[in-house]
């Protein structure tokens, strides 16, 4: 590979940029083990803020809410998104219907999240006339999350679907398979990597989400990001640092694990091609 012209300046810029991304995170992590209740002077090392996390009912409940919300919404969004992707590309829709679907898929990508959140608030308020399920709370949050997750799952699955050619399905048909058999034995197994990465994306999006949850949550369905946000407004405490650091560490584990996985599957696909 060709060397770029400025061998000193560029790495410097790059490292500076990385540092810029990490300074705040490192600050949070380091103050999470600071033995001082208030202020930011260093007063020795401690684990006590972490220990406190596990005794805080609110935090444990927020953890559970976050995971429950992410889990349920991901499961729904994965099924619906996959069905949508397969339906869109394999069913002979009219041109207009097809472009309508297309437009809907890209909507969440080009809509600022907050607009979407506002729209959900109104939609749920309207639905409340018909049923009390739509009070702010977990159900609304799940629906809200699923709504934006579906589009991302469908996009990921669709790109995977587009990557294998029609002949594969024709081969299945040629070999006496019914449509259902083809779906079960050929299309779904071949889509699996796409479905898995779509689900992972949906899961992380849900964990990461703040705005949609903020607009649709009720008093009993506080998630971790909402909890941290509320606490920060009351003033930063070491407890929050500890909680954030745990979140950060979990993120690191997830990222490293998923990178390893995708590397492996890439190697598998490329080594014999």
């Amino acid at each position: 590979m060709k060397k770029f012209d400025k061998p000193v300046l560029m790495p410097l810029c790059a490292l500076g940029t990385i540092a810029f991304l990490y300074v705040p995170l490192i600050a949070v992590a380091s103050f999470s083990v600071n033995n001082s209740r208030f202020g930011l002077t260093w007063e020795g090392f401690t684990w006590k803020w972490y220990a406190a996390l596990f005794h805080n009912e609110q935090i444990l409940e927020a953890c559970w809410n976050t995971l429950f919300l992410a889990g349920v919404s991901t499961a729904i969004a994965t099924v619906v998104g996959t069905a949508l992707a397969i339906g869109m590309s394999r069913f002979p829709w009219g041109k207009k219907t097809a472009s309508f679907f297309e437009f809907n898929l890209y909507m969440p990508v080009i809509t600022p999240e907050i607009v979407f959140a506002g729209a959900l608030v109104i939609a749920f308020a309207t639905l409340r006339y018909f049923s009390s399920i739509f009070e702010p709370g977990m159900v609304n949050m799940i629906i809200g999350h699923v709504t934006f997750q579906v589009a991302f799952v469908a996009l990921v699955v669709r790109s995977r679907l587009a990557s294998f050619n029609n002949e594969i399905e024709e081969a299945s048909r040629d070999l006496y398979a019914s449509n259902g058999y083809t779906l079960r034995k050929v299309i779904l197994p071949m889509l699996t990597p796409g479905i898995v990465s779509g689900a992972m994306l949906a899961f992380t999006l849900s964990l990461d989400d703040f705005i949609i949850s903020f607009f649709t949550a009720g008093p009993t369905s506080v998630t971790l990001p909402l909890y941290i946000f509320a606490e920060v407004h009351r003033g930063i405490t070491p407890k929050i640092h500890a909680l954030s650091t745990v979140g950060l560490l979990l993120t690191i584990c997830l990222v490293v694990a998923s990178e390893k996985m995708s590397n492996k599957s890439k190697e598998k696909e490329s080594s014999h091609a």
Partner: protein
Amino acid sequence: MLLTIPALALIAVSFATRGSYGEIQWIFTWENYERLMGYGLFGWSPDYLWILLRSLVVAAVTTTACIALAFPLAFFIARQPKKKRYLWLILVIIPFWTNLVIRTYAWQLVLSPDLPIAQFAARLNIIPQGSPLYPSSFAVYMGMISAFLPFVVLPLYSSVEKLDWTLVEAAYDLYSSKKRIFLQAILPQTLPGLSVGAILTFVPAMGMFLVPDLLGGAKYMLVGNLIQQQFGKSRDWPFGAAVSLALMALTLIGLFVFRRKGEDMEVV
């Protein structure tokens, strides 16, 4: 379906009237848009228009700054030996997946009065001794840029990785200056990644609510905060819906301008 119904509801509500207890009254009115344009009970004031304009500027500056910072980083990573590249990429992906609430309040921490950055600024007499560097526009920009940087770096990197270096060599061979090499041999090849990154930054930056809320304070309100206020505290949904639609329109215009520019660039 799930997406269209809320969108239609939004449009409908934006023309409705707010009742005295924050409920929606279905009386058609342009009032919400008039208010947005500055015509209120007390005559004309440009407050809301300023907020819209400020959001546009913040989003545009953030996008530009992210691109400027992303280029060296993307090239740096692409130039690393293959094994190490993943490590560097992971370094970019980790903040990308770290919750934004955490990342934003972390800046509060970094800019707090006891830490070197604020103390340095105090020494320079930019801020009074013992006060934090937030809320301020500086803090908002820090928060915004660090929030969106990975969104530009990752797609840009995937373009840089695929870059055809023989074109660069051909440009060298044909006596190009360094500037021309960049503009004509490198930039056009990275445009796809660049435009994905720019869209991924510009769109959410337009509606950003967290960063200005935590780092900007009341004086530095952006559209996101305005919308949140209407749906939250003020319970003025019709106005909130109108602002949302205005934001949507601005975003679409922004994207459109950007696409036009992008096309021009490709032609050059």
